[in-house]
């Protein structure tokens, strides 16, 4: 009997921060003026305590024992009403510790977004419009399309119709081979188009959290070494090498990656691990399209293309992963090879919106890296760009807590992916792959729309 149908859903639950995060806002009162104001109001309201002590903050920042003299800064949401009411007394600004968060790529806002998504499992929602920069570079310069009327019947994340976020990993046959029709499929379906990429920094707790989360989510994680834990073993994508082949043969993984420059490794892995999906791992460069075609011809099942942690590729003149991915995807399409290999993209995919955008640029799925560490409250000690020298230092964590944070993150990203697909009227994320026509590029639109407008001199 077929098993009962269950709609895919990621169960999120609160996993509050265990290390204190900086207050976003720094509230302070000029104490002498505050005291003078209280005296003044005491006269004005004839010592009516309730009125005199009624405070401008509806978030309880002045609700502590010492009121405005010792504001409860962590409660401040930056609404600015205290400044509006008492401009001569109150100052509210972004705190220095908030402004120091992140590095040249990770903005404080992005760090806060990930921390909040991981702790609450809820989509960030705000009122009164967008507050950031106009378009921009890389993923910021891409808008996704929407459909006014023609689309599945859905209400955002509260939807009635199912939108699939599943993707297949592995090589797909180009035609039906009737002699092998009774064999199991050589692809693996994962419910969200996201895996955990190898972390360049991570202690045992972090690795355990990642393994646990991958298992719960039905996704995979890439790692050079096997973890010593019982859980997560089925979700591991090891990076195979010559010396380790025998170990892998003993316990064949569902998916295995290898460094593409070791050119004879594919044959060896594919022959010794016939049931595994073998994926070549290679840095994105100017010649990645050509190499991708060559590898696809040789029969690899997939390609894991990575940029640095800031999303820049390794070309002589580095470009954003969105541009290099498009080139690889298009070369594979031209060569008639695109449907034969799975493309995994990683590096600089750090926010929920980057997932659909990377897929639009040609990836089937993405790998996340520094975001995992940020969600687990790792500390920024410098630039995070270099894969070999990432300055995000993990802290000691409880793996169960860490796993829940990562499950929350996936839950929120899944919901946001659904929002994007839903707005486009697309029911299946597989249909988004390489669909540049359902996106809008800042650079192109600017030239089209502002055509004929002279440059200021």
């Amino acid at each position, binding site marked *: 009997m077929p098993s009962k149908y269950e709609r895919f859903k990621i169960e999120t639950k609160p996993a509050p921060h265990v290390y204190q995060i900086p207050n976003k*806002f720094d509230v302070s009162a000029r104490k002498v003026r505050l005291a003078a104001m209280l005296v003044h109001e005491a006269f004005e309201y004839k010592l009516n305590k*309730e009125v005199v002590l009624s405070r401008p903050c509806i978030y309880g920042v002045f609700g502590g024992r010492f009121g405005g003299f010792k504001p409860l800064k962590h409660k401040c949401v930056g609404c600015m009403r205290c400044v509006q009411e008492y401009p001569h007394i109150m100052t*509210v600004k972004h705190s220095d510790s908030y402004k120091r968060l992140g590095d040249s790529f990770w903005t404080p806002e992005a760090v806060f977004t990930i921390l909040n998504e991981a702790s609450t499992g809820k989509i960030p929602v705000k009122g009164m419009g967008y507050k950031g920069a106009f378009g921009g570079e890389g993923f910021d310069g891409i808008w996704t399309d929407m459909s006014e009327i023609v689309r599945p019947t859905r209400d955002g994340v509260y939807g009635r119709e199912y939108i699939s976020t599943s993707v297949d990993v592995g090589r797909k046959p180009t035609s039906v081979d009737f002699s092998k029709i009774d064999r199991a499929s050589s692809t693996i379906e994962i419910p969200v188009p996201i895996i955990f990429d190898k972390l360049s920094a991570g202690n045992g707790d972090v690795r355990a959290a990642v393994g646990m989360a991958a298992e719960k989510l039905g996704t995979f994680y890439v790692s050079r070494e096997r973890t010593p834990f019982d859980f997560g073993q089925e979700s591991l994508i090891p990076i195979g090498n010559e010396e380790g082949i025998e170990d892998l043969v003993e316990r064949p993984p569902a998916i295995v990656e290898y460094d593409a420059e070791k050119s004879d490794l594919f044959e060896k892995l594919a022959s010794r691990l016939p049931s595994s999906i073998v994926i070549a791992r290679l840095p994105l460069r100017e010649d990645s399209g050509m190499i991708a075609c060559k590898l696809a011809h040789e029969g690899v099942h997939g390609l894991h293309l990575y940029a640095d942690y800031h999303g820049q590729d390794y070309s002589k003149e580095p470009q954003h992963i969105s541009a290099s991915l498009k080139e690889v995807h298009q070369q594979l399409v031209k060569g008639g090879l695109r449907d034969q290999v799975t493309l995994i993209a990683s590096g600089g995919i750090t926010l929920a919106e980057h997932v659909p955008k990377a897929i639009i640029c040609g990836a089937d799925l993405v790998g996340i890296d520094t975001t995992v560490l940020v969600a687990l409250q790792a500390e920024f000690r410098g630039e995070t760009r270099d894969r070999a020298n990432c300055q995000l230092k993990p802290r000691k964590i409880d793996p169960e807590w860490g796993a829940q944070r990562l499950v929350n993150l996936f839950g929120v990203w899944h919901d946001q992916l659904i929002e994007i697909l839903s707005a486009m009227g697309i029911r299946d994320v597989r249909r988004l792959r390489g669909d540049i026509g359902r996106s809008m590029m800042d650079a192109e639109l600017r030239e089209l729309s502002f055509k004929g407008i002279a440059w200021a001199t």
Partner: protein
Amino acid sequence: MGNLELIVEKHSERIHHGLEVLPNLRHGLPEGLGNKRWTAELILATYEMALTGDLPKNGLEYKTGNSGGGFDVLGWKNNGSAKVESDKIDLSIELNKRDDGKKITIPLPIYGGGMSFGSISLNFMLARARAAKRLNTFMSTGEGGYPDDIVPYRDHVITQVATGMFGVREETIQYAPIVEFKYAQGAKPGLGGHLLADKVTSEVAKMRESSMFTSLYSPFPFHSVYSVEDHKKHVDWIKTVNPRALVSVKVSTPTDVDMVAIGSYHAGANIIHIDGGYGGTGAAPEIAKKNIAMPVEYAIPKVHDYLMSEGVRDEIVLIASGGIRTADDIAKAIALGADGCVVATAEAIAVGCTHCGNCERGRGCQVGITTTDPELSRFIEPEWGETRIVNLFTAWSKRLRSILAGFGLENVRDLRGRRDLLVRYK
């Protein structure tokens, strides 16, 4: 007077006083105020204009924000001194360019966008309706229904018909000089609306004919519309119920926004209203506002040029919204090809909004704008709000006149599509 009254009065006075003194910068520019789109200066300049009805005189930046793109990288060609006397300049636009139907002219190329009862306070809604009456323009109900209190202003109120159909009744369509179909909105393009349970008070529930403190969803899209023909049925329905009403079609800005516009024209719409993603007042997922659909700056020329090439541009009114913050934004939108603009956030800023984005937290807006909290709502007395909105638009019309005067244009309609008057900054 009871304590509650005294407390409301105290804070109301303080907030109003703060809005008066903050723009004079005696206490400096508040560091935590504003963001790239609505900078602290722009917010304070808006407070100042709402107070005086004039442009700021102390150097506060009132023309552009700091978003690094769109309107913020467009400026005006150097045009020397005024070539037309300001008071000779006509800022009015027609809202019906078709041969049939009622002719409606508004004296400024601006009207107020949809903000629903429930998502905003009744007092703020009343302030907007009163201001629309005084300025002889319009404001839109949004999709939250038509409170009885705004019926006296009905000649200046646009009834919005959205997917939830809240408050859409025969009489509210019959009241309306303009009926606005909201197919989509910029802040949540392609997504449904969601009013959190906390905001569904007894009044809101009554208005929307629903249950108290239960979340309300408006689905997306109209489940009765899957083609231009279906859309035409919608337009016919409204014209049957109220033959005098003009029909506006509010849409978001997808890649094929030009096709949507021409479809609306063929369905019989009088106004095509394109709403870009960077504006909006309702709470929306951050991912939607930043990433879905194109900014209105890019959509306006696309639609304008396409309607021109189809030879119908002079039969339909193109209104732009979603990120229009200043008089300069309005003039730039018109120079890019719009006839006029819809604004909403700027009206909220005029009455004290800080663009903090906390509208959906706890009791709602701390200064009484996006809230149904009975105490907080009282910070905006309708008369006070009306004056501030009227003042803001008065100051804006001065700026619009000065831009037109510099180019020797006597009529705002002559600015439409004049991209040659703009310059781009890197």
